């Protein structure tokens, strides 16, 4: 029996990984296409119709590129830092429920790789570990652009982890559980975005900062730091950073869907389609802001996080607790 469970687990993992990495690869194409349209040009359109083979061409190019390691770099740390970013982003997907439980030959099969009862903390723990990929990649490159990018990345990600975690406290209070499956089940009547709009906005902003996208892309600010922490990386190591970033965007989208938009719940369409549609809204929002907003200055970024987002998130927790107590009488 345990063997069957193991096979099932492997199957679920394979399917989730395929969908996640496929979506992440095509997100790059979608981003380039959309950015092109936002800037009144076409975007990639040479590789196949509408440029649909572009991600594959990019992948082949990346594999064939020379893997350079700069002189004076810390070789071991340099080699493994990109893997941290990609691994951590992919591992978060393990706790995201993608459908209601399936009943197959009388067995109840949960449609999630692992329903941890502390799933939300697992998400926060992993996203706090992704700082190491950025900070160590920047440090190990032995280049001042990279080091500055790495330091900026570490400070920014540590700062924005706090509003990210605090904005989820009201969600846990409403759902009464850390489990992502329970959180989705608690949204059977209405999605939490209706009762927690402030937490939703804070989570979204903190998520943009966590994924280091414009207007918060100070760690890789092109006009002052070349490419920031991944300046010295080439070939597949650079591609791993890239994949990590886009997988992170997809995962953050799925988390927004699970915490605030009701997860896989929705009428008519199958649950998985709903989850993917909701999850894709966040990357689209990120691309749109990238094409629209200018980059913040670094002190503005820090002030915004510490002096605005964290106090509002704390007040939101207090208000939620007060209202919950009041409603219960």
């Amino acid at each position, binding site marked *: 029996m345990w063997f069957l469970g193991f096979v099932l687990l492997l199957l679920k993992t394979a399917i989730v990984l395929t969908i996640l990495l496929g979506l992440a690869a095509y997100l790059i194409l979608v981003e380039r296409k959309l950015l092109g349209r936002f800037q009144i040009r076409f975007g990639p359109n040479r590789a196949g119709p509408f440029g649909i083979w572009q991600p594959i061409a990019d992948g082949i190019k990346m594999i064939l590129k020379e893997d350079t390691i700069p002189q004076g770099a*810390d070789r071991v*740390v340099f080699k493994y830092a990109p893997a941290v970013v990609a691994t951590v982003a992919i591992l978060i997907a393990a706790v995201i429920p993608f459908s209601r439980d399936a009943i197959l030959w009388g067995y109840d099969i949960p449609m999630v790789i692992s329903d*941890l*009862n*502390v799933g939300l*903390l*697992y998400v*926060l*723990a992993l996203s*706090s*570990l992704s*700082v*190491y990929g950025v*900070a*160590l990649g*920047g*440090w190990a490159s032995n280049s001042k652009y990279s*080091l500055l990018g*790495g*330091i900026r990345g*570490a*400070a920014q*990600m*540590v700062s924005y*982890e706090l509003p990210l975690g605090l904005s989820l406290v009201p969600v846990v209070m409403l759902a009464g559980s*850390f489990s992502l499956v329970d959180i989705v089940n608690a949204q059977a009547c209405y999605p939490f975005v209706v009762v927690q709009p402030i937490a939703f906005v804070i989570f979204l902003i903190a998520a943009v900062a966590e994924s280091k996208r414009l207007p918060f892309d100070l760690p890789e600010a092109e006009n002052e730091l070349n490419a920031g922490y991944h300046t010295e990386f080439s070939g597949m190591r650079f591609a791993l950073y890239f994949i990590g970033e886009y997988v992170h965007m997809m995962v953050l989208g799925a988390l927004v869907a699970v915490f605030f938009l009701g997860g896989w719940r929705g009428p008519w369409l199958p649950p998985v389609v709903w989850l993917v549609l909701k999850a894709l809204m966040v990357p689209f929002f990120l691309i749109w802001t990238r094409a629209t907003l200018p980059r913040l200055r670094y002190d503005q970024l820090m002030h915004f996080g510490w002096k605005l987002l964290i106090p509002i998130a704390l007040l939101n927790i207090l208000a939620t607790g007060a209202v919950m107590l009041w409603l219960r009488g």
Partner: protein
Amino acid sequence: MTLHGLIFYLLASVILASTGMAITRRNLVHAVLYLVFSFIGSALLFCLFGAPFLALLQVIIYAGAIMVVFLFIVMMVKPDLSEGTVLPLRQLLPMVLFGFMYAVVGVLVAVTDPAGRAVLETAVAKPTEFGHYVFARHYLAVEIISLILLIGLMGALHLGREKVPKEPEEPS
């Protein structure tokens, strides 16, 4: 040996080895990294004992926050520590002293409760039980600790504040 025991000894040796590496490295970034491995190893150990809540707190607080701040400082300051022996003499005394203290406490705990039931019971508590226990029984301690943290925060703010009054900005 059961599978459980095998995993335990594997994890324990990883933790011991990485902690040993952490205290003997002269390269501070490598030392921080080994310490992170050690923390993640202890988190896995908590998982093995059936305490995922504690394990994830360990990762979030120690590996994800405190060690990142350490790494941040090491990267910013970049101290030159290439000279000197691995363990200078003036670090030896505090090391022996604290090591001895921890050894005494550890032996005492092991002698009074060989099966480790009391410790394990608190460790495997669910988040809800843990919250009820802490805020119902030990609210005074919680308040005192939060006050200390607030004082630390205010102290940091005071130290970070600029002493000199700002000069009027040049007209642009």
